């Protein structure tokens, strides 16, 4: 038999990852349904218009899509990988001829699929129950697509890199979730970003979630709203530059820090 390639093994691993994910019902429900519950709560509590023709739900859906990138990539992997490290999964894989890249390809497939399902559910629920308007121009859809691909890649690699921070699998959720929740508050997911205190805005601007959120707003909010952003424009170029920079940081960080064994 000829030797399979890293890519073909990676795709097989992706299928396996998805199968394992689907069999953990609690985590399927938590990962997929929780954002919908939040959308329902926030959409019902804040039914006001925040600007001409812009409902809070519209603003919030943009934030939740950006959060979805962080939840399905960063949060999911930074919790899952330490558990696999504790269980001995990673060490066992290291002892086989499986190329290391196949493992990461498998994880990326899992993230990509859960991200797409998440975005689809948010948009469907938003349109069906909260009067959310979908973008109408091809340009906006293209920006959304680019944001999902690059944002998800960035989130995935940062999750892999951060997986070395929690010391145990058991404690991973307690380390990772607060980071995500604080970033969500700071980045204008739950509140209007420009209503936040200056220092909070400045801290948020260092991290990619703020830019993912802003990028999603540029897709879902009318261009007239751009004037109300911090810079008075969508800053699309800067948005992608900063997310891209974090992607590069994540790659270097992950290569340097990734451990196959519990220390």
């Amino acid at each position: 038999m000829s030797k399979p390639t890293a890519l073909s093994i990676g795709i097989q691993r992706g299928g396996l990852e998805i199968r394992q994910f689907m069999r953990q019902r609690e985590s399927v429900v938590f990962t997929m349904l929780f954002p919908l519950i939040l959308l329902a709560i926030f959409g019902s509590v804040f039914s006001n218009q925040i600007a001409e023709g812009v409902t809070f739900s519209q603003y919030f859906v943009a934030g939740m899509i950006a959060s979805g990138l962080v939840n399905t990539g960063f949060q999911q992997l930074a919790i899952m990988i330490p558990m696999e490290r504790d269980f001995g999964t990673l060490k066992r894989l290291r002892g086989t001829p499986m190329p290391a890249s196949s493992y990461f390809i498998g994880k990326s497939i899992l993230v990509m699929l859960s991200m797409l399902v998440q975005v689809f559910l948010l948009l469907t629920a938003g349109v069906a129950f909260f009067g959310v308007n979908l973008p109408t121009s091809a340009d906006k859809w293209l920006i959304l697509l680019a944001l999902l691909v690059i944002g998800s890649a960035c989130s995935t690699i940062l999750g892999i890199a951060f997986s070395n921070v929690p010391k145990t699998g058991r404690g991973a959720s307690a380390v990772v979730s607060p980071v995500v929740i604080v970033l969500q508050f700071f980045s204008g997911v739950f509140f209007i970003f420009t209503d936040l205190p200056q220092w909070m805005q400045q801290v948020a601007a260092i991290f990619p979630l703020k830019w993912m959120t802003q990028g999603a707003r540029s897709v879902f909010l009318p261009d007239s709203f751009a004037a109300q952003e911090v810079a008075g424009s969508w800053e699309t170029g800067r948005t992608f530059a900063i997310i891209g920079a974090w992607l590069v940081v994540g790659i270097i960080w992950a290569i340097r820090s990734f451990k196959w064994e519990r220390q």
Partner: protein
Amino acid sequence: MSTVISVAGLKKSYGANQAVNGVDLQISQGEIFALLGPNGAGKTTTVEILEGFRDRDSGEVKVLGFDPATKGSAAQAWRDRIGIVLQSTEDAGDLTVYESVSHFAKYYKNPKDPREVIDLVGLGEKVDALGRTLSGGQRRRLDVALGIIGSPEVIFLDEPTTGFDPEARRAFWSLIRNLRDEGATILLTTHYLDEAEALADRVAVINHGQIIEVSTPELLGGRATSLATVTWREDGLTKSEKSENPTALVSQLSSRFKGEVPELSVKRASLEDIYLEMIGGANE
């Protein structure tokens, strides 16, 4: 017989702790070799260096002619020829036995048939059971299946039968002997002395990071020539005597009792006695 594993002057320390302090080993093709030693003796560190999981400080190590410390694609080709059964793992709980084994088969150039391997380790009836529903012993057999699926030439087994019932252990031993008969070389670490005695062609005792002795289980620690203990019952008391010449002692007892000696037994030191004496002696 060609040498499959060779270790010379191996050293490894963790800070001030010299975990492995000059280990030498030669293991031939087709041999079952057991490494015995108390916890913290350097057993796991030695084996993990051979498996390529740990780097060494100094010394020469070759497994199948390859230095396990090498990284990159050459290491991948080498990993294709070895099989590792780690100490207890609890991964892949959400996959069935068949899914796990058939997936691992895809990592190797020349895998065995997944279904055959599952039958071989005695999990035939559990082929569609999820990993998390298996008992401890069944999990261990799954670990073994994953370790041998790639038709390895060298198999590392770390405490393989922990949690097995006696029947499962015997079945496991015959599985290991079959793999050896097919030409595999097996390096085994175990806490069970009877396991080493039943399986191993040779055993090495390691303590304080050094090999104390390498021998066959029968000859280890001068076992064959050690004093025998003769025990019998006399005047309502159990009496025993250590002797270099137990036969003479028994015939002496026999004439004293004019025939049958009550509750007579003659015992040589077990491997366990010898082993405990060796590591106890080394601790002093």
